[in-house]
């Protein structure tokens, strides 16, 4: 095996130094792209509860989380559909106007996430951004159950 390096490494050859420099530059440019994009591109938006959304986020694009309490109208209709979102703590509510696709699991009582802007007391949603969170049938019922060891 003649191409195996000797046990004591030789001082780096000029070619090797170039390789090292190039690798460092590639790593730096990857990180640079990353830093620049995250810093300057308007790539993120706040995720807010109903109570948070109504305080100082007027006109700003946000992602809203809450539970559907009342729903009227049809998302397919030009007038769209309207529903009321409520905080998990059930302290604040917000009316939402929405058009577009409605997920199969959507219904009153379900926790949802939706993008849009809050202005003049109404949350106007971006079409097709309605997402239902985990269905309630996955809720942990450990509190109402007994462990097999004690039954």
């Amino acid at each position, binding site marked *: 095996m003649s191409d195996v390096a000797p046990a004591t490494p030789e001082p780096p050859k000029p070619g090797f130094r170039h*390789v090292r420099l190039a690798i460092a530059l590639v790593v730096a440019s990857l990180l640079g*792209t990353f830093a620049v994009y995250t810093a300057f591109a308007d790539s993120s938006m706040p995720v807010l509860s109903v109570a948070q959304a109504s305080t100082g986020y007027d006109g700003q694009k946000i992602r809203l989380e809450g539970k559907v309490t009342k729903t009227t109208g*049809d998302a397919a209709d030009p007038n769209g559909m309207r529903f009321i979102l409520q905080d998990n703590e059930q302290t604040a509510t917000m009316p939402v106007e929405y058009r577009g696709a409605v997920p*199969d699991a959507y219904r009153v009582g379900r926790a949802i996430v939706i993008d849009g802007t809050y202005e003049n007391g109404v949350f106007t949603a971006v079409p097709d951004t309605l997402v239902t969170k985990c269905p309630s049938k*996955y809720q942990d019922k450990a509190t109402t159950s007994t462990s097999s060891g004690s039954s």
Partner: protein
Amino acid sequence: MALIGQGALILALLLAIYAAAGGLFAGLGLDRRFLASARNALWGILALVVIADAIFLYAIFTHDFSFTVVADTTSRSLPVGYMFTAWWGSQAGSLLLWVTILAAFSLLALRATRRALGELQPWLIMILALIGAFFLLLLVVPASPFVTQLAPTDGVGLNPSLQNPYMAIHPPALYLGYVGLAIPFALAMAALLAGRTDSRWLVASRRWTLAAWGFLGIGMLLGSHWAYTEVGWGGFWAWDPVENAALMPWLVATAFLHSVMVQERKGMLKVWNLCLIAGAFALSIFGTFLTRSGILSSIHAFVSTNIGWYFVFALAAVLGGAFGLSLWRLPLLKADQRIESLVSREATFLFNNLLLVGLAFAVLWGVIFPLLTEAVGSVRETVSTPFYEFFVVTFGLPLLLLMGVGPLIAWRRASLTQLRRSFLWPLTAGLVAGAVMIAFGLGSSWPGVAAGSVCAFVTVTILSEFVRGAAARRSIHGENWLVALLRLIGRNRRRYGGYIVHLGVILFVIGAVGSSAYETQAEGLLEPGQSLQVGSNVLTFQAIEKTRGANFTERAAVLAVTSDGKSLGTLRPAKRSYIREQTTSNEVAIRTTLTGGDLFIILDGIRGDGAVQIKAFYKPVVGLLWLAGFFFVGGVLLCVWPDEREARRILQRYTEEPLPGES
């Protein structure tokens, strides 16, 4: 019954702890008899876990709703086929499946490495038993499938979105991938513990990584196909945290599968490879954590429980352990050689690795961004699709380019004449493809044109590899083209299997870029007789058709489709109302053309007066996405298939190569 199941799991946990201790004793050389005993303990774990599985499945199939999990995920009216999928429809059930796969994989891995890696066995047993013990602990304490209650008369039923044939294959494929990554990790850690840091563990782990990577890939592709045809929003990937959870380890494992060649061939990147293998496994644990903890909102999330802390601990143990062991063995991990030139195949692999890991990091950043912003400030922030798309394009395009450059460049150092000769045709093809795309009016999307050019460049590179190899065989052995090609592939399965996977990647890229960058979309409220145009297709709404299924009622919009005045028949996008489950589901209508394009129609809503809201897309070449899957599977199978010639070659190398510390 539940008591027996729970007992089996507790016993299995104790056996796993015993096996880990036995492995440790044997590894330290205290008493070699522990090795056989620890191995037997692993068999015991498998047997006990299978007993637990059997009890769990028996409870599902006999509607024993005194099992809380069974009552929460099944019902009397659930079709028999979906009772089986209910196994992984709950958190506890899916963890049980995890442990079952791990127990089986552990024994397989021990058997496969017994001859070549005998000295690693005790450590391998210890690491695998520790991983098993962690998941068994989850099953015994916070997520037991054997928690009981006063049996209700009927169960809640399985989530309708899981009542789908895809759900029978998509989650198990992903589990096989996630769990499979435990084996290369265990091999790497065992090699470090034993001080056997030569390429033996690497060669043994390659096939496992490849298989796990293949399963993850297939799992993701099946999930995408399910999302496309069943969820019906018109896309196939939503950058959901749980989708990303599968993508991250896949990307890191992809990097490993490439850099492994550099270590095998040149003895370089040893520490890097360890980082990749530990990173891939840590990301697989992280992925499981994301799904289980409910820490991020995702449609895949199970439930918010305190199980998250167990995973945080496991993650810290995996990363800390790997870091500590690598640091300890650093003197044994020195590179045998160095990269001499930037224009060499090893340099190409290195850049490919940096880009893949960079992309994985960008995805990870996006996934944990809400957690980070919440920890730093008071408000949680999230990133959405444009963030991910930006990085997929900026890191993905150079990666794609390297896929074509790699095979054209020699190991160590390439000469200028050689470069000119090998690059001439692929480069011409790339430029011509770009020009043709612009000439045909596809210049509207620069990523589209760039991807098209690069794909042409890579395709010509790969195809010319096949042609050149077959031609060489023809002239040496006098075989005909077909025989030469088949023997060429058969004798170099890894290499040509890899090229076939690359062709799959090209098809996937063309499908993904083509269907998104050149998609046409239209939507409108149609009354009977009114039309909507999308691309060259005209959809005329005729009537609403009502039908009744076994457990649902369906209302479909009948749309007559014409293109350039020619009738293409009717399409029926529909809405189904499931009576018992009280849910509605969208049934999209898809018409696939001969060129692989899809006319994709969603019935968004039906108004009281009978008008329908229709959304229609024309997605060119989207069919290539699914065709890519076959190339992917074919290529992976070719690479993983046992190759006696290669095994002999490796065995010969083992006998020639001194062990570290012996030279």
